[in-house]
């Protein structure tokens, strides 16, 4: 019987339950064999007497409406059915037909109810909708490895109340307090005194070095002249990971924590990192220390290590994307500043834009460069030449740091993608007004832009043009049709459709058949609602109010996106670790049963959104 216990424990919900649960189920189970095409449960027939767990073969769940049977789902080994009828003790709503010969383990009703009573997770699993299970699958994954960053509240990292000082104290007095209290930073109590709120100032040992000593200020300089006020702070109930991200993005090392409007303590990057060895927080420091291109080259490897560490720790893919964006932006800014130093001050305001996945904060492991430049219409005649040189230097150095040129030549070095404002506005406008193949392709990349450097505010001059797409139904419909060209990889029977390439079979392209479709859909919703967010998750989260997708379906797509991205990322990380070229292909049967099931439901969420888009934009009526 051990073998049955082992089998049960591979699959949810038994995989998260004590072994005793699977042992109980196995010891009381019955085994039945069904012929191909036989009816296991009849819709409207007698209530199920068992929870059926498939050991071998597949079954179709068939819903009959107006005499028309529709296969609503296909279940495979490890999956169960009959529980809905069991729980309600009511006739099955859908019929269950054996698609192949089926061997099933049958858990009798009394044992099923006993398991429900004894194990809350068991009851939750079978009472939840498939959508809830998708989320719980994603969460279980997060909790399974190193939950520290994602489960610890910063409040729990506070070691002592904050040490405060008045703003009229001198820097020398501040240094003495730091020495006596053995701390690296003080809260500066601003009037009204005695109440340290979120507007309080902060002074750190770094400030004493960089702003006082290095600038040759006297030791009687009052703190108010060198402190930072108000200090960047965050609520005490934030997660350690959020604190880490904030410190990373702001490049700070101390965070006052606020509870009930009061500073109740401090958390430092070392407090958080003490238990986390490879961390993205070290990255900007590496950059500061980098003296030349050689140092910068190893930076990409460090980003990769940090991302791997975050993935192992169970970070959400969208959070990983933010970390990577901060890290890569820092590198890019450093390279551009170095180039500006070599070429002299820019002759006119400009903006350096990153596009596509980088623009969406979705760049994860190494990818191609996609970038563009936009500069002010009013510029001296030598400006174009300056920007050409700047683009050449920056792109070339990025290549040397491990970011290959985009194969489609979407680079600031290409004069087409290095233009003054009015030209860019015309280009964007034309893509919307004449939505041919090329326009749709370009819009899919360029509309996902993000400014990383430069004094020109690109958003202010480009966003109004993009807003025009909002009312342009032809453009949106064309875009919708393009997004439907690749259907979610589901078979007629709602299993995952796999492909064969050469001698490899059972392959699934997680990008082309998964994330890319969601990215396209989210862009359409974003444009439809006139939103300026560029990341897929924030587009979905913000756009549903004004776009043709319901809140529930938007949430589903977000979860689907997280899940597919996660499976893809982990697969790529493993490929890189094995010295292989990272690809988007996975061999579906080699994934864990949990991943297989999660992916299947994710693809069903995509298919659902695609059907919604097709209806809304009547894409089948479009001609040409």
């Amino acid at each position, binding site marked *: *019987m*051990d073998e049955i216990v082992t089998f049960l424990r591979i699959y949810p919900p038994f995989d998260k339950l004590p072994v005793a649960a699977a042992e109980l189920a196995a010891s009381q189970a019955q*085994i039945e*064999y069904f*012929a191909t095409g036989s009816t296991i449960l009849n819709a409207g027939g007698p209530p199920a007497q068992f929870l059926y767990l498939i050991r071998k073969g597949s079954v179709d769940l068939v819903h009959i409406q107006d005499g028309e049977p529709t296969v609503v789902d296909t279940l495979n080994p490890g999956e169960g059915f009959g529980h809905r009828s069991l729980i309600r003790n009511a006739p099955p709503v859908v019929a269950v037909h054996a698609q192949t010969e089926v*061997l099933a383990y049958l858990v009798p009703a009394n044992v099923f109810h006993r398991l429900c009573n004894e194990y809350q997770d068991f009851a939750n699993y079978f009472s939840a909708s498939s959508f809830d299970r998708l989320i719980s699958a994603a969460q279980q994954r997060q909790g399974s490895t190193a939950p520290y960053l994602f489960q610890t509240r910063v409040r729990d990292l506070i070691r002592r109340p904050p040490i405060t000082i008045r703003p009229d104290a001198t820097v020398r007095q501040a240094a003495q307090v730091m020495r006596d209290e053995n701390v690296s930073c003080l809260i500066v109590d601003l009037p009204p005194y005695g109440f340290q709120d979120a507007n309080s100032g902060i002074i750190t040992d770094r400030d004493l070095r960089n702003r006082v000593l290095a600038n040759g200020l006297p030791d009687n300089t009052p703190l108010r002249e060198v402190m930072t006020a108000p200090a960047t702070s965050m609520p005490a109930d934030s997660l350690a990971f959020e604190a880490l991200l904030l410190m990373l993005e702001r490049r700070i090392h101390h965070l006052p924590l606020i509870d009930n409007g009061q500073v109740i303590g401090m958390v430092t990057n070392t407090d958080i990192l003490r238990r986390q060895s490879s961390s993205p927080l070290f990255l900007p420091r590496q950059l500061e220390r980098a003296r030349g291109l050689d140092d910068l080259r190893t930076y990409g490897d460090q980003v990769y290590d940090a991302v791997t560490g975050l993935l192992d720790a169970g970070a959400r893919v969208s959070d990983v994307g933010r970390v990577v964006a901060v890290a890569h932006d820092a590198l890019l800014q450093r390279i551009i500043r170095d180039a500006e130093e070599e070429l002299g001050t820019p002759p006119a305001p400009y903006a350096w834009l990153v596009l596509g996945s980088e623009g969406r904060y979705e760049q994860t492991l190494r990818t191609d460069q996609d970038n563009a430049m936009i500069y002010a219409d009013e510029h001296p005649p030598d400006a174009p030449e300056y920007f050409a040189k700047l683009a050449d230097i920056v792109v070339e150095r990025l290549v040397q740091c491990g970011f290959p040129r985009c194969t489609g030549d979407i680079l600031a070095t290409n004069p087409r993608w290095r233009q003054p404002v009015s030209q860019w506005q015309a280009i964007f406008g034309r893509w919307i007004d004449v939505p041919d193949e090329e326009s749709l392709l370009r819009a899919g990349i360029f509309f996902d832009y993000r400014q990383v450097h430069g004094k020109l505010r690109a958003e202010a001059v480009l966003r109004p043009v993009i807003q025009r797409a909002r009312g342009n139904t032809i453009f949106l419909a064309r875009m919708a049709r393009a997004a439907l060209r690749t259907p979610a990889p589901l078979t007629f029977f709602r299993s995952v459709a796999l492909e064969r390439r050469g001698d490899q079979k059972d392959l699934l392209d997680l990008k082309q058949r998964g994330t890319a479709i969601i990215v396209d859909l989210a862009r359409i919703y974003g444009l439809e609602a006139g939103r300026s967010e560029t990341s897929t998750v924030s587009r979905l989260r913000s756009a549903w109010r004004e776009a043709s997708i319901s809140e529930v379906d938007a949430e589903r797509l977000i979860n689907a996106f997280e899940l597919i991205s996660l499976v893809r990322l982990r697969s790529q990380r493993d490929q890189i670790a094995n010295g292989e070229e990272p690809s988007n292909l996975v061999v579906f049967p080699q994934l864990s049963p949990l991943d297989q099931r999660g992916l299947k439901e994710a693809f069903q969420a995509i298919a659902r959104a695609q059907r919604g888009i097709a209806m809304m934009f009547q894409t089948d009526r479009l001609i040409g």
Partner: protein
Amino acid sequence: MKFSTLGRLGVAPWLPWGRKHELPDFLRAYESGPWPDPQKPWREARYVVLDVETSGLNERRDSLLAIGLVEIEDGRIRLDRTWHTMIRPPEGLLVAADSIRIHGLMRNELATAPTFEEVLPALIERLAQRVLIVHVSRIDVGFLNRALKQHYGSKLHGPILDTARIAVTMHQRAQMLGAVSHDMPMPAIQLRGLASSFGLPVYGQHDALNDALTTAQVFLAQATRLAQQGKHTLKALLRSGGV
């Protein structure tokens, strides 16, 4: 030694003419059936799947060491009603035997196990009124009949199905119907190979209960396929693989 043991049980196996009166109650109850009706659909009959472990293949020399039983009712294997026991072999065998199965743990378990005579009533009770299913019946049934005959002058009575025979019959029929070509070799008759050829899981280590369970699943698969060929009744099954 043998005679003295049997004498204690009050049995006179060498006197077949007086047998009926000497039979213990459990055997008399067993022999009186009733046995499943062969005309009924196979699912309506009750079955018991048996597998034994022995010290070797010769029923005259070797001894039963373990028995595993799995019941099938309403066409479903009942894991809640499985039965397994070790059997202490005759004194000399434990010392003399060099069989791998009698080494180590097994030897210790066997030394404290009940004797076959002690096990027999419970075993026979479980076989009553059921179709017996075995894989390669010659060995298992041979050992049981030999022991029954020795001790009580009795033998197994009810219908017996052999899953290995069913497999051969199904293969021959398929050949006759041209479903498989004539030069196609016989499919695996060995239990695990046969189970795998149906895509069925094979349960754990070789032991009497695991093998009985594997046999039971093979039987369900065979009966399901035969029913699809129009052979729904127990009679049809017995024709395909009865002993």
